[in-house]
Structures are given as C-alpha cells and as structure tokens.
C-alpha cells in the first residue's frame, strides 16, 4: 500500500517537473492540441449562446472562430468553455483556456493585479439600469431605497456602489452568481431594477416574460470597454489576439466581406494585397500563415458582418461601435 503511494507520488512529481521544464508558447500548445480553447459567457444573447443545433453563436464566439480560422484555416477548431463571471479570471490564470472572449471590461487593476493582458477593445459599452416601465422611474436619482439585482464578480457591482455613492442615495444590492438567476429575480419582482452593461440589458430584455414592460434608463454610469484578454507572459500570443481583432475592423474599412472576398484575389491595391497575404509576409511575423486574414474573411467575416449577425437583432445601434470613418471609435493600426 505504502509502496504504491510512494510510487504515485514519484510519478506525480515527474509529470509536474516535466510540465514545468517543457514550457511551450501558447501558439505551440494550441497547434499541438489541434484546437483553440476559448472562454465564453455561460449564455448571453448576442455574445455567446448555444443554438438549437447545439453549436455556439454570438459576437464573442465569432471572435474565437476568427482566431481558429487564422491559426488552423478551420473556424470550427474551437472548444468553447462557458465561464461564470467569478470563474473566468481563474480559468485564464490556471491555463484552462487560451483566450478569454467573454464581454470582459478592461480595467487597470484587472490588467495588472489579475495578471491579464487586454488586447484590444472590440465593443464599447456602458453600464445602465433597467426598470419596469410602470414604476415611472425616469432616472437613477428616483431609485432611492431601491433593491437592485446585480451579477457577482463584475465591475458592475463596483460601479453601482460608486454611482449611488456619488448621487448620495441608498440602495440594496442582491447579488447572484449567474446572469439567468439575476434576471429571473428581477423579472419576478424581487428587485426594483437590474443593472448591467447596456448591451446585456437589451439582450436580456428579449428573454423576459413581457419584454415591452421594461425600459432601459438613459443614465450611463460607466465606461465598459469590452474585449478579449490573455495571460501575462506570452507576447506573441498577445500579438495574434490583437491583430486578428484589428483585422476584423480593418476588413470592414477596406470593404472586404465574407461574400466578396473572392473578388479581391487579383486586386491591385497594395494595402489590401498585404492585408490578405498576397505580399508583405505579415502573417509570418505573427507566427501564422500569410493569408491569415483572408482565411478569417472566408470563414467568419468582418466586424460589421459580426455586428449585423449577432447584435443588430437585439436592436443595438452601431453608435460608437462604428468605424472611425463613420464617426465611431473603431480604428485599426496599419497592416504593414
């Protein structure tokens, strides 16, 4: 018995030591595994949901598929790992996932003390409040003494407290672990209001019993820049995460879509030729193949297409999430 235990311990030790010794880069790990492991939301309409066919759909999901397309030339080589707000950072730190694409707000403390690197802002959001229309609440200042449902482990929890402290009004937070519980509690009347990023409020509004009986207030309490995040310590991987995201934006600026990508095969524009990998060798610099963005376009689509596919149905306007040429904030550095 004892001998077996000692033996087990030795084996465990050996395995541990070899893993430490053979530290691979994230790209190598992903390639040798044959698929990308991507942390997504447990269920948020428009960003990450499971469709009736059992596949994942959504804006955050399509970003992961774009990464897989860039690496493997196959957008389906992704394993989606649904994560609660509480579990997401630990999952990334513990190397359970390669990239976190889960409507996560970029903040200074997360970027540093959580050991994360945020690559790029893919969606500019802000925190809002939703209330039942019949309560006649017109702004947050009317909510003195209200009970507010909120999801735990989010920046939302902190912004809410900050905002109400600034307005000097009292509130009681009721904190739930999952999105579903939070909105079920709000829908049943347990809370007077529910708070979250406006995109999420609009997405969840469609799932309530009577969607038209609820309004999202005009107050925006905070800036919520959402984007993919990776672990500290692998710059090449961070670059890939960053430039695939920039590629989605740049493609829209060039007017390259999943439908018309074929027509750019013999384009004369040197910028587009570099972008699609016909010249310049940009992909190789990232450790990918040169046509990585052409693959992404063929298999997934550009930023505008993703927005149209997943967020337009929620009645979300492009707003600031538009190209800089259209008066928005999306601006990709040059591909050269």
């Amino acid at each position, binding site marked *: 018995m*004892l001998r077996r235990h*000692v033996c087990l*311990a030795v084996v*465990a*030790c050996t395995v*541990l030591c070899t893993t*430490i010794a053979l530290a691979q880069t994230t790209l190598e790990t992903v390639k040798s595994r044959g698929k990308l492991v991507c942390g997504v939301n447990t269920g948020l309409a428009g960003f990450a949901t499971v469709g009736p066919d059992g596949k994942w759909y959504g804006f955050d999901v399509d970003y992961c598929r774009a990464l897989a397309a860039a690496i493997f030339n196959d957008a389906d080589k992704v394993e989606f790992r649904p994560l609660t*707000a*509480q579990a997401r*950072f*630990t999952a990334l*730190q513990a190397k359970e996932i390669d990239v976190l694409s889960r409507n996560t707000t970029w903040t200074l*403390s*997360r970027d*540093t*003390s*959580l*050991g994360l690197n945020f690559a790029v802002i893919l969606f500019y959001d802000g925190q809002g409040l939703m209330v039942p229309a019949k309560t006649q609440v017109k702004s947050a200042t009317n*909510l*003195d*003494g*209200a*009970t507010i449902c909120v999801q*735990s*482990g989010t920046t939302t*929890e*902190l912004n*809410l*407290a*900050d905002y109400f*402290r600034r307005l000097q009004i009292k*509130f*009681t*937070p*009721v*904190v*739930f*672990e999952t999105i579903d*519980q939070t909105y*079920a*509690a709000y829908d*049943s*009347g*347990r809370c*007077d209001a529910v708070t979250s990023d406006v995109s999420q409020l609009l997405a969840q509004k469609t799932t309530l019993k009577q969607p038209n009986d609820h309004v999202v207030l005009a107050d925006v309490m905070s800036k919520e820049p959402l984007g993919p995040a990776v*672990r*500290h*310590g692998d710059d090449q991987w961070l670059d890939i995460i960053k430039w695939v995201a920039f590629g989605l934006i740049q493609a829209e600026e060039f007017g390259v879509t999943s439908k018309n990508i074929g027509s750019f095969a013999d384009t004369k524009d040197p910028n587009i030729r570099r972008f699609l990998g016909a010249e310049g060798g940009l992909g190789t610099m990232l450790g990918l193949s040169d046509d990585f963005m052409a693959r992404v376009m063929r298999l997934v689509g550009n930023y505008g297409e993703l927005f149209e596919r997943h967020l337009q149905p929620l009645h979300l306007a492009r707003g600031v999430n538009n190209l800089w040429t259209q008066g928005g904030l999306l601006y990709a550095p040059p591909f050269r």
Partner: protein
Amino acid sequence: MSPPIPFYRNVRVLAWLAQVTFALGVVGLGWLLLSTMLGNLQKQGLPISFAFLPQPAGFGISEGLPFQPSQSYLTAFGVGVVNTLRAAVTGIILATLLGIGTGVARLSHNWLLERLATLYVETFRNVPLLLWLVFTYAAIRDTLPRLREGPALLWGTVLMSNRGIALAWPQTSATYHAFQPWLLAGLGVGLGVWGWMTFRRRGAASQRRALGCSLAVCVALWTSGFLWTWMTTHLPPVVWSVPHIAGFNYQGGIVLSPEFAALLFGLVVYTASFIAEIVRAGILAVPKGQGEAARALGLSDRQTFVLIIFPQALRVIIPPLINQYLNLTKNSSLAIAVGYPDLFSIGLTINNQTGQAIPFVVMIMVTYLSMSLLTSWILNLLNRRLALKTR
C-alpha cells in the same frame, strides 16, 4: 549470547526509518508544489499578499450588519462571517428540533405519523441539498406575490411578498435610558435571590423554587419599571416597530429575506432528515429492559421517555450529531446559489476584485476550520459530561 542485530534487520529501527522517509517525502512534495506555485505566480506578476485587506471594498452587501462600500475588504469579510454564523446557528437549532421530532415520530405507534415522518426523511435525505436550495428559492421568488400585492396578516404585523417576510419587532424608544436602571436592577436582584436561596439549601426541589422566586422578582421589577417609565413620560420605553411599505421596500419591523429563508429552509429540512435517523438509531440502541423497568416502577410513558430512554439515547446520538452540525455549517457555503451573502459568496467577490486567490482560499479555509473545530470542541465537552461514568 547472540550477536547484536544489525540495524538493517532491526524491525524497530526499520519501522522508524520508514516513517521518517515517508514524512520527508510528504514534506518534500508539499514544498515542491508550494514553490512551483509561488514561482509561477511570481512569473505572472501576481505576488501573494494580504495588503488588500484594509483597502475600501467598493461593493455593497444586501443583508447582515450595516455595511458601506467605503468600508474595507476585511470588514466585508467580517459581515460574511457573521452572515454564515447567523445561518449556521439558526439552522443547527431548528434542524435539531425538527430532527428530534421526526426521529421520535418515526418510532411512534401512530401509523399516519410514522408514515409521514418516513416519507419526509426519505424525500429530503435522498435529493442533493443544492437542488432543494434552488427549488426553494425559485418557489419563494415566483409563487409569492409582489411587494405591493402581498397580504398583511395578523392585523398588519406580518407582511409577506417575494421581497421577504416583514414582522413587527420590539424597538427601544426615546425613554429607554430611563428604563435601563430597572432592567439592570431586576437582573441583579434576581441573581442575588437565586444565589442566596441555593446557598442556603441544596436539593432538586429547593433549587427549582429558587429559580422560580428569582425569576418572579426579576420580572416584577422589570414590569414595574416599564409601567413607571410609561406613566411618568407617557411613552413606553420599548415599542413595537410595525412594518409598512414605503418607497421601494418595507420600512420598520424586521425583514426575513427570501434568500436567507431559502437557505435556512434547505439546510434545516435536509440536515433534520439525517438527524432524525440518528435520533431513531439512538433510541433503538437503548436496551428494551430499561423502558420495561421504568414502567414496572410506575413511570408514565412520557416520564419513561424523558427521564430514562432519551438521556441514555443521547450518548449514542451526540457523536454523529456533531458530524451533522459540521455538515450544516459547511453546507451553508452553498448560499451563493440563492444570492445570500455568506462568507464564501463575499469571499469570492473579494477574490474576483483583488485577484488574490491564494490569500482568499487561506482565509476561507481558516475561518471554516475554526468554526468547525469550535463546534466539535463544545459538543465534545457535552459528550464527555454525558458519557457513562465508570470507576
């Protein structure tokens, strides 16, 4: 005389060596794991530190001791500890009462009572606690009426809705300070009377009389003080705070939140079903002859049970009961599933905001460990008192 045994054939030395080697192995493995973890955390730029504790928490807590977001993480953690203790202590008391009742009912000669108790035990014991919690919470949330549509029971002293149950609750008024000396005097005089009477005479009967007398003196002083304050100031020192709906929520009284209610209900009914079986086993473990002898001496059924059977059954009951109390306390960490801000739930939030996973785990572990050790220490003292004294 035989030659001395070489050490490698000396069984005692070998056994000793094996133990030392094993201990060294365990320590070595622990050290390896710890240093790997610390090294990796250092590499990721996440050094372990408790420096975040005095920082302002920045988030609100729904219930428990008054807490402001500007207070520290440590205070928030303390609020969580108190919330856990609140659920655990109330849960233990209620589960014990329900468990004993059900356990006795399972041995009843009343067919219906016995069947009902069996049904209860088998239903609750065989379904996971988490399921009961989620189910109870959803039931409270979705079946109880909304705040303004809820019923007012018992002349408005009890209000009910899916915001919770609001009860009328005594509250000190402006004249309370005038009543306070009477309160202390009643306590002091009562204690004095009790001490004097028990000192003067010993024996069960006189002790009972001493207790009765001292209680009577104490209550008499309190009542006269209460009335005196009321008469002289035209305001009773303690008044009822009656709940009412104002603004968005209940005001006044005491509010039992649906989250706490769901957690308490789940913990109590689940644990009580196990306690019932322990009680039943304990009672059945008392030899039949004890009950027969008691009845032969002319004791009634009730006396037989209270004086003869149950005290002996307790010796069998208490050790496994300690386990159930510990389970209940630890199971209260499932509170996160129903939105009750217990120690674990608040701890998770702190971890999420600060990224200090290791200190968080250590703090949570130490807290649960001390709670459990304290519970078993107290109950072991009780167990030792009740144990059979043999000479």
